[in-house]
């Protein structure tokens, strides 16, 4: 069978686009006006770019986190929980310790908490054979409930009504950078880009990076070559969790300056789409994360026209299905 992308793929993608069009029309909004608001709200001017880049950073870092695990053949559905727990770790540190040292320790706590939250999933997969998808779904829900409990009571700011901690001391904020265009970004964006570049070089230039890909591509060949698949898988999961936790820490230290219930609007699930779009190579993470960020801010800005945020879920879902379908064709060729 030499069929690569058949006509059915085209029909599927066309049907998805029609469904998105119909979803917008069903809400009674004018499609042309909606599209215009969508683009203007996400890419038109410095304020729009500020919002889009705020979404871009967690998507980029979580996309990287998911991709690290994916290289070892693991699906880290738990990036959302690791992000949340990483942010919690950073919050707990900077609420006790101000200044630059608090900020740096907060970032370190994010890394550590994220890795810690990924540990059970990595260990279960490597040494117990239990599927990481199940364990990470469980860990996501536990993270959500645990942080909800904490912000309702133990770490809640008694002076505020909502389920939130106090605002962090300003001395712990990541410095903001104003780009020449007037767009505001956090310096955490530099950290995020460095993580991507670092992973790209590491994957291509180091023995460990080679082993990671080897285990993902063919665990049997890896074990014949003397590479411990168990060790590599556990390591990949921990690294993935650490990057996700760091993303959470940067999100609260650079943008939100407090920790609150349901902090992530589902970045970890969008990140799965980002990583799937970037399986061909690490640099593709940047445009993929940007596309998802534009979808997120674009759908937020068309709410004024009466189109609910649910549209972003529809787009995400259809993207995941489409990407998985196209990737399936590629995999079929690889088997021949």
């Amino acid at each position, binding site marked *: 069978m030499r069929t690569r992308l058949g006509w*059915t*793929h085209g029909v*599927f993608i066309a049907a998805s686009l029609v469904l998105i069009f119909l*979803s917008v029309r*069903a*809400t*009674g909004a004018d499609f042309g006006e909606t599209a215009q608001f969508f683009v203007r709200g996400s890419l038109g001017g410095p304020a729009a770019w500020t919002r889009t880049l705020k979404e871009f950073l967690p998507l980029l870092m979580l996309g990287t986190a998911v991709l690290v695990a994916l290289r070892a053949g693991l*699906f880290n*559905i738990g990036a959302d929980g690791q992000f949340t727990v990483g942010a919690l770790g950073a919050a707990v540190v900077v609420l006790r310790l101000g200044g630059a040292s608090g900020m740096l320790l907060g970032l370190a706590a994010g890394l550590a908490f994220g890795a810690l939250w990924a540990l*059970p999933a990595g*260990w*279960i997969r490597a040494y*117990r*054979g*239990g599927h990481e*998808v*199940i*364990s990470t*779904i*469980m*860990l996501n*829900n*536990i993270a959500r*409930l*645990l942080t*909800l*409990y904490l912000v*309702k*009571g133990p770490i809640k700011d008694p002076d505020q009504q909502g389920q939130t901690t106090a605002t962090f001391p300003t001395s712990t904020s990541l410095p903001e950078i104003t780009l020449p265009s007037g767009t505001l970004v956090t310096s955490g964006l530099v950290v995020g880009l460095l993580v991507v570049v670092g992973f790209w070089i590491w994957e291509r230039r180091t023995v460990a990076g080679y082993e990671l890909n080897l285990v993902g591509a063919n665990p049997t060949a890896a074990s014949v070559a003397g590479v411990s698949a168990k060790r590599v898988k556990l390591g990949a999961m921990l690294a993935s969790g650490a990057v996700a936790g760091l993303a959470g820490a940067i999100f609260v230290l650079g943008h939100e300056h407090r920790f609150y219930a349901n902090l992530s609007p589902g970045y970890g*699930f969008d990140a*799965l789409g980002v990583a*799937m779009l970037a399986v061909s190579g690490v640099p593709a993470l940047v445009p993929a994360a940007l596309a998802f960020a534009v979808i997120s801010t674009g759908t937020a800005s068309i709410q004024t026209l*009466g*189109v*609910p*945020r*649910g*549209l*972003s*879920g*529809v*787009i*995400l*879902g*259809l*993207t*995941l*299905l489409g*990407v*998985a*379908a*196209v*990737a*399936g*064709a590629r*995999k*079929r060729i690889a088997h021949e």
Partner: protein
Amino acid sequence: MNDLLLLLGSTVVLGSPLVLAAMGGLLSERSGVMNIALEGKMLAAACLTAVVSSSTGNPWAGVAAGVAASVTLSLVHALVTQHFKADHIVSGMGINALAAGGTSLLVKGVFDREGAAAPVFLPVAAYWVTALVAVLYLVWYLTRTRGGIRLMAVGNSPSKSRQMGLDPLRIRIVSLLAAGLLCGLGGCLIASNAGSFTDGMTSGRGFIALAALILGGWRPLPALAGCLAFGMTEALQLQLQGTLLLGVAIPTEAWNALPYLATLVALLFRKGRGGGPASLGVN
């Protein structure tokens, strides 16, 4: 004594959506299709059943619409995993996102503007009787019938079962459609327990059903026991709300986390696949 009866009653009512979804998941996973989309299928059914029964005033039309929504998602699931050979995990996540976004869009963007009447539902007993019948039928079907044994064979090795003359594609599609039907009923029951549809109202029950399925080793009776145990934690939580247990107030979140924690602990201590189909998730 009255409290105990009340507890058992609400355990059955709250556990039944889990049982229905878990039996759907069992059929699909035993045929080899990993189904993390139970959540999305139930959510779509819960939404459509509430929307249609409130606009028609007919509970049967509501159930039909809910089940149709869930079965449609199952068809998409089958198309993507079987025809396009897509990854089962990514496509499952895709269906969950599509259902979460689509139901929210439908309710907030289309029906809220029109102001809907209160939905009408079938009596709850219709659901838990169906759930129980589904479990007993599956016990018999999987161990005593040719169709059931073929289903398990496809899940263990699609290539070997093809050499034996079976048609894995057809068996997997039928299993997915049956899963859609059962998840659909589960979703209808969730909406009917609550009396209306709210955004994201399945709140992880699809994943809890999946957890019960896995803890039960992909067998109907242990999965049923798991679902009822998880249903009981939900019932206990409602009944003990605000009271002290051994002098400590147990936070709601701890009750809600119990099924997830139990699953995680079981995975930590269990070695191997725990009796699951050998080719789960393999195209």
